């Protein structure tokens, strides 16, 4: 999971545009929000879609395994996409 951080060309979830889909490469468990996301089933290898960005730019709504979840941009920036 850590090698992704060394790769400076990596994409993170917060960089995807509305409507775009990505596959989770790594999701750091140390963040409380990400731990909760994993409990909801967002795990490495899973497809995730950006559904909408809130009017003021934050938070964002994502979709995975048929559910819609809203998270803050700062958390999405920790999730690395393939």
């Amino acid at each position, binding site marked *: 999971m850590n090698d992704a951080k060394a790769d400076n060309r990596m994409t993170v979830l917060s960089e995807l545009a509305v409507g775009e889909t990505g596959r989770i490469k790594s999701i750091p468990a140390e963040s409380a929000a990400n731990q909760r996301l994993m409990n909801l089933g967002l795990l490495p290898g899973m497809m995730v879609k950006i559904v909408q960005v809130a*009017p003021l730019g934050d938070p964002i709504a994502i979709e995975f395994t048929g559910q819609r979840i809203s998270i803050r941009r700062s958390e999405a920036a920790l999730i690395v996409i393939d």
Partner: protein
Amino acid sequence: MSLIEGMASAVETPRRLARVAMLGNPNTGKTSLFNSLTGLRQRVGNYPGITVEKKTGVMQLGKGEAELIDLPGTYSLAAASPDERVVVDVLTGHVSGTERPEALVCVVDATNLQRNLFLVSQVAELGIPMVLALNLWDSACKQGLNINVELLSERLGVPVVPTIGRTGEGLPQLRAAIVEALEKSARMRRIEWPESAAQAEAKLRSAIPESVRSQLKELELQRLLFDADSAIIERVGWNHEEAREVIEAARKPLWDAGVNPLAAEALFQYAHLKEVLDGVVLSPEEALPRGSESIDGILIHRFWGLLVFVGMMFVVFQAVYAGAGPLMDLVDAAKGWTQDLVGPWFDSMPMLQSLVTDGVIEGVGAFVIFLPQILILFLFIALLEDTGYMARAAFLMDKLFHWCGLNGKSFVPFLSSYACAVPGIMATRTIEDPKARLTTILLAPLMSCSARLPVYVLLIGAFVEPQLGPFWAGVTLFAMHFVGLFVAVILAFVFTRFLIKTKPQPFVLELPAYHAPRMENVLFRMYEAGKEFVQRAGTVILAITIIIWALLYFPRPADLEAQETRAFAAEHAQTAGVSEEEALAALESDEELAAALQARIDGAYVDQSLLGRMGKGLQPIFAPAGFDWKITVGVLASFPAREVIVSTLGIIYSLGGDVDEESGSLRDAMRKETWDDGARAGSTVFNLPVVFAIMVFFALCSQCGSTLAVTAKESNWKWAAFTFVYMTGLAWIGAVLVYQVGMQFL
């Protein structure tokens, strides 16, 4: 249980009630199912020491009955939030006053089985008999999901019942399944932990000090292993440093297997659930479009979503602010009728008469008057939550609140508080994050509620408009509505950083599928909110009203009335140029004169009442804000409810209590008021700096016993006391600043 109670229940029911707990994720229709199972036979309280709501009810089960506990909705057992802690502690039997349940009803959303079973699989570790309710079955069917219920039941080893909470379908089967689970002790098959997790757990078990281990169930060992900083450490009184070391050492097998312990449970459980559900759920070849997606296209759209939001909030606010008006007038009128009806019964006993009419009936009216607003607000809250829109509203508004430590769900409570803080504070129940919730409770009373309006109208109408013109009168009224908000924003920043030490919850907000609201749910929510308010806040409001009544009523010197009558007759004799006997006779026949006399007598009573004396005694404290003793008495009398200021001023200025904020006579009396002594002797009391100081004082001050009662109920008395102190302190500082700065310009 006392001996007699024990005997009585032994006669009625040979065996005590079976205890069943209901658990599940939020947004699964769990509460609706709970209501259907228990009907109105519910009790709502708090778990000891925390503000998590404890709901219990009695349900019919076969030929007998069972006690049903509605546990808070959670996604996992990671004991991080207070809700999750309660679920873990109840299930492990560690909450005093709540015995460990004998069976569980796990409510899951049939449209998202895998995620919902995560919690259930965690709970399975406890080995408590269980029934699985596949709720929202109709939605699953609509989506074309084909769920093999029998196969699922076989794989899990527990009864599985499809239910539709909205229509009550499947409820008889669910009851039967609970009986079956209790009788057969049907336990859910547990996950087979991979070697690394099993090793880690064994390691932890052997490394934990005996004093701690004896208090822990296996499930709690797992919580310690998988969760970051589990709250269980605190509960068992384990040294934090030592705990961290022991737990970290025990996690080694997981690290060795290349698994981050904090991710381990999710990875293992979801792998397990994938196997469990393999072949159980068949999705349609082509996914049917779900309504939620197209609705969200508009409702959380960056532009249209905001527009809809503003429109909806406008409707909610109007309904609470204006819509409740006629009902509140009705309550007020009913109070008046009751006073008129009951009053004469006590004509021979003036003190008792005053206690009953001005104390008790007034006090009951004082809390019943809030019911229309509470019921209307909760009608909308229930609709917003039941449909799934509330989460969208929080999503849209989050950024606006996030920077000062709150979150999007604070919007509705703050908005409602512009009508009245009482329903506003009750609306904070929709905020899951305890830190954001408490901060919202503490700051909601700063919003300019409708009870402040009469003060603004009176003072602006009497002084600002005549002196500065209608434009500045409008600006002032507008600005007064922002003073509290402005202060609240700064305080939110301060409170969340320095005062409230609770850990903030991560913001992970489910946007649940949209559903048509269910009328029964909505009505039940309104009933519940109203009932709780009356039960828990009503008594406090009544008590406060009676105390203030006593402070205004006593002492009651016997000769005061005669004295005032004589003095009034003498004055009237002089102005009208008649003899005192004629003046006294005129008092009997002339209604206008009699009313003026009565107003004067009432004023004299207030003048020498305990509260009046306190006002004079405390006036020096308010002198730096330019308040004379009459304003000070008005301010003091307004602490239980700020809206009484206008009628109190009417009494103090001997105009009677029937004046309102538009009264010309009250405005005239105030304009004529001058200082008798002191630095400003001879000049008018109400110059513009004083007027603005009073308005700022009322904008910021905690002058509402009902708000404090509700704050105490929704948090505790300590925070209610804090609210009173911080607001009143701020109000004083604000008023002094305004007056002192204002006087420099005069």
